[in-house]
């Protein structure tokens, strides 16, 4: 799996990455759709999402960060913080 440079956090790519891990079509991963309640993600898939994000974006996620991985928008915000990119 290739990792992406820290300067390029693309929300659509993030959407595709997450969709692949949780085994749904990217179109189903709406910005505000909750992974667990709306998309049927279980604790195991959530853990896999964390592993894939860490590898792909070369960031370290703490246990406390995981509770912020509830929907795509929250993942995007967290990754932007981790990658040190402020509001555009």
């Amino acid at each position, binding site marked *: *799996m290739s990792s992406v440079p820290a300067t390029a956090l693309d929300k659509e790519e993030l959407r595709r990455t997450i969709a692949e891990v949780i*085994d749904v079509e990217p179109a189903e991963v709406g910005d505000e759709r909750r992974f667990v309640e709306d998309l049927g993600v279980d*604790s*195991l*898939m959530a*853990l*896999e999402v*964390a*592993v*894939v994000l*860490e590898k792909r974006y070369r960031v370290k996620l703490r246990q406390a960060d995981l509770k912020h991985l509830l929907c795509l928008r929250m993942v995007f915000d967290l990754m932007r913080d981790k990658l040190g990119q402020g509001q555009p």
Partner: protein
Amino acid sequence: MTAAASPVRAEVAVVRPASPNGSAITSATRFVIAPDEQSFTGHYPGLPLFPGVCVVECAHRSSLATMPGAGAMRLAAVKTARFRTPVFPGDELTVQIDWSTEPAGWMCDAGIRNGRGEVARAALRYRNGPAAEPPVRSAPWPHTPPAASTRITPAEIQRLMPHRYPMLLVDQVTAIVPGDRIVAVKAISYTDIWYGRPPVDATAEQLAFPTVLLVESWLQAAGLLTTWDRPNPDPLAGEVMLLGGLTNIRFHHPVLPGDVVEHRVRLLRAHTDAMVFEGESLVGDTVTMTVERVSMALRPPESVIALAAVASAA
């Protein structure tokens, strides 16, 4: 024995050979998983569960039986597999395959159902030709763990894990850093139970160790990393270890009698009841299998027993 060795005794029944279905090519098969499947004896005593890798084997055998077009196709990779619920003795499995073309081969997208719903999905990649996946060099093994100070034999392994003969597929743990990484080995023999009694002229292909059992053997090494500090020899008294998902497991080289397979497993992340691993398997310096990601879950036995009761009532 005319076909390759298989851990699944059940015969594949072709319901529909590969045929055009709208713009797609699809096929379908079914299996009856009888209570006398060899794997049930040791997986697990008192709580027979059809191993997840055997569900993948059903998808694989379905592929071989209904492959569109001609040519010797080899299983190159398990691109993904997701396991939703266990399969129990007596279950009838139906396998529904969507085919798509790949460079030099086919992709099989299989949905596997029992009478109660979908049990798993598996995407298997096949390649035409003698080699499955191109050879790879072993990635440098970071921080090689120290060798185990004593020999960790099957007796110790069975004090840690619920797997029993013939489904105990790790012979020895050679090195471990608890909570982090493990090295374990499995020796392959011509007299291995999975070959049955091979004909004297059995080809190398027929004597290739079943691919899904190499995966299972690797998974058991991962399981040992988990149970090292938390022995779990009896699923009825402890927890049931269930396979969650396989992602991009590639097969680079067949494994034959006489080979000693070394599994290397790293724990990527763990939560209370869930773990994610990566790693590889080697024979000597040859990488035979690479594992991008595997997830496993520990479930309370009550939840699995309840599912088994529903299955046997059906």
